[in-house]
């Protein structure tokens, strides 16, 4: 499903003293199969942008096409849209509510009109997909799980509805390194299932560099760049405008350049760095 954003504008509390432009004339396209990173400093409009994709925020100016849906149209089948575009909020474990894990995960499918039996099957599949043991966990209260399990349950609650597009707002926030890695690997796994497109907000450039094939950079409510991570992180001038950090591997490359050693290409991860270094050999001075 292609997502096409055209001249999107959004203002908070318009025509009041608290008026604040959150998105200013944003246009870009997300293609089927993309894992797209949305980056920018806090308050740059990332979350506001993402909440447009499933019409949690209705468009006040501009257009968005999600597959067949026109999100700017007056009449919109919200149920079908929200089923197709799943959205995981920050700290999603804080939205768990049901008596049992099974019920919580089945909440989405039931809302989207599935029968209880079908919803249970979907819940089972989703819980297994996120790597939880269904039989062991299904009747537990979501509140007695560990932190990592809670987050997985919350993710299961989103993907149980079989969304084609998955929007993740800082999915690894607050987790320990192991937990972070597990969630990111899970996202990679999910892309082998029915989830076709992933849109991910993150502050961690190492994550973005490793997992995303494209990045959208927001700066001060405007779209600053729409490019690949490699392009973005190769361009020191571009980056200095945004005040964003760079992945560590890129940082090392830049530090080497400052010391007169030029690597051919931009390594995004430690693995790439080592390979590039071994392959090309430092092209000294």
């Amino acid at each position, binding site marked *: 499903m292609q997502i096409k954003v055209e001249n999107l504008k959004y203002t908070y509390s318009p025509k009041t003293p608290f008026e604040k432009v959150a998105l200013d004339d944003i246009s870009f396209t997300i293609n089927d199969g993309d894992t797209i990173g949305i980056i920018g*400093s*806090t*308050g740059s409009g990332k979350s506001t942008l993402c909440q447009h994709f499933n019409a949690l925020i209705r468009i006040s100016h501009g257009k968005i096409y999600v597959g067949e849906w026109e999100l700017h149209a007056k009449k919109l089948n919200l149920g079908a849209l929200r089923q197709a575009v799943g959205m995981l909020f920050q700290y999603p474990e804080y939205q768990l509510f049901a008596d049992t894990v099974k019920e919580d995960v089945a909440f989405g499918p039931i809302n989207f009109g599935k029968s209880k039996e079908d919803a249970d099957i979907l819940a089972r599949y989703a819980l297994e997909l996120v790597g939880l043991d269904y039989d062991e966990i299904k009747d537990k209260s979501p509140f007695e799980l*560990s*932190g*990592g399990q809670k987050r997985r349950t919350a993710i299961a609650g989103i993907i149980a509805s079989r969304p084609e597009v998955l929007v993740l707002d800082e999915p690894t*926030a*607050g*987790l*320990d*390194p*192991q*937990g972070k*890695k597990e969630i990111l690997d899970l996202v990679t796994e999910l892309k082998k299932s029915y989830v076709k497109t992933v849109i991910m907000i993150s*502050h961690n450039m*190492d994550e973005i560099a490793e997992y995303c094939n494209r990045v959208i950079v927001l700066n001060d409510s405007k779209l600053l760049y729409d490019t690949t991570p490699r392009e973005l992180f190769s361009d020191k001038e571009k980056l200095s405008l945004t*005040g964003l*950090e760079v*992945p*560590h*591997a890129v*940082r*090392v490359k830049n*530090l*080497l350049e*400052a*010391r007169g*050693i030029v690597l051919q290409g931009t390594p995004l991860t*430690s*693995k790439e*760095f*080592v390979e590039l*270094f*071994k392959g090309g050999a*430092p092209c000294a001075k």
Partner: protein
Amino acid sequence: MENSTANNVVIKIDNVSYDYRSSSDEFIARGVKNVSLSIGKGEFCVLLGRNGSGKSTLAKLLNGFIVPDSGTITVNGIDTSVDESIYEIRSKVGMVFQNPDNQMVASIIEDDLAFGPENLGIPRDEIEKRITWALETVGMSEHRKRSPNKLSGGQKQRVAIASVLSMLPEILILDESTAMLDPKGRAEVMETAMRLNKEKGMTVILITHYMDEAVGADKVFVLSEGELIGEGTPREIFSNVELVKRAYLELPVASKISLELKESGYDIPFALTDEELAEGICKLK
């Protein structure tokens, strides 16, 4: 190199164990087991370990929120299990928590800073001086009369630090205080903690999941399942691959690269930071 502060110990934990128990004394979870360590005056220490490894339990023990099942903890020579001295300990051991919103009591920043000293019965003029000093120290003076609600995460945490500083503690514990912040906020808090340590000689104990926050520490303690499994300088800890794996830590990217390059036959020293790595590569023939 051996630390020369051994005779200036401010915190001594001697063979301490603690289990979480329900009100009916049933075992719920292990907190820490047989932990012994000591922290010298003016040291910057980092506690690492995955979720549930006992880091926060240790912090709570240091502040006398909980008392050991066995073993003893002394802060400045005072036993934390002695009821009468509990407030003396708490005023000496300032503690900043994870969620900045959940540790502020007042709606105006200066009132929040006054809260601790007021509780201790400090005279008014003295409180005034302390507020001015503490806000200056964390660089938030111009926000003195404002509400904390509109601040960024990093600013809120700096206020939280100031609110603790106004009790004039000798030890500052940051219990995952950077976990919920964006990179900018994290940098602000780290910079503040570092400065307090270097300029004011404050003993700092930082609990974190971010490995890069540990590389500048004097000492790192590694916990796993309630036990202290490693103790040393960041270099000693991170170069111990076995330990890193066992505690589910993550290597800093620079360390990862330096180790991999070494494995590929390059004669490169173990690097903790990107800068060290770049230096190391430059020295390669």
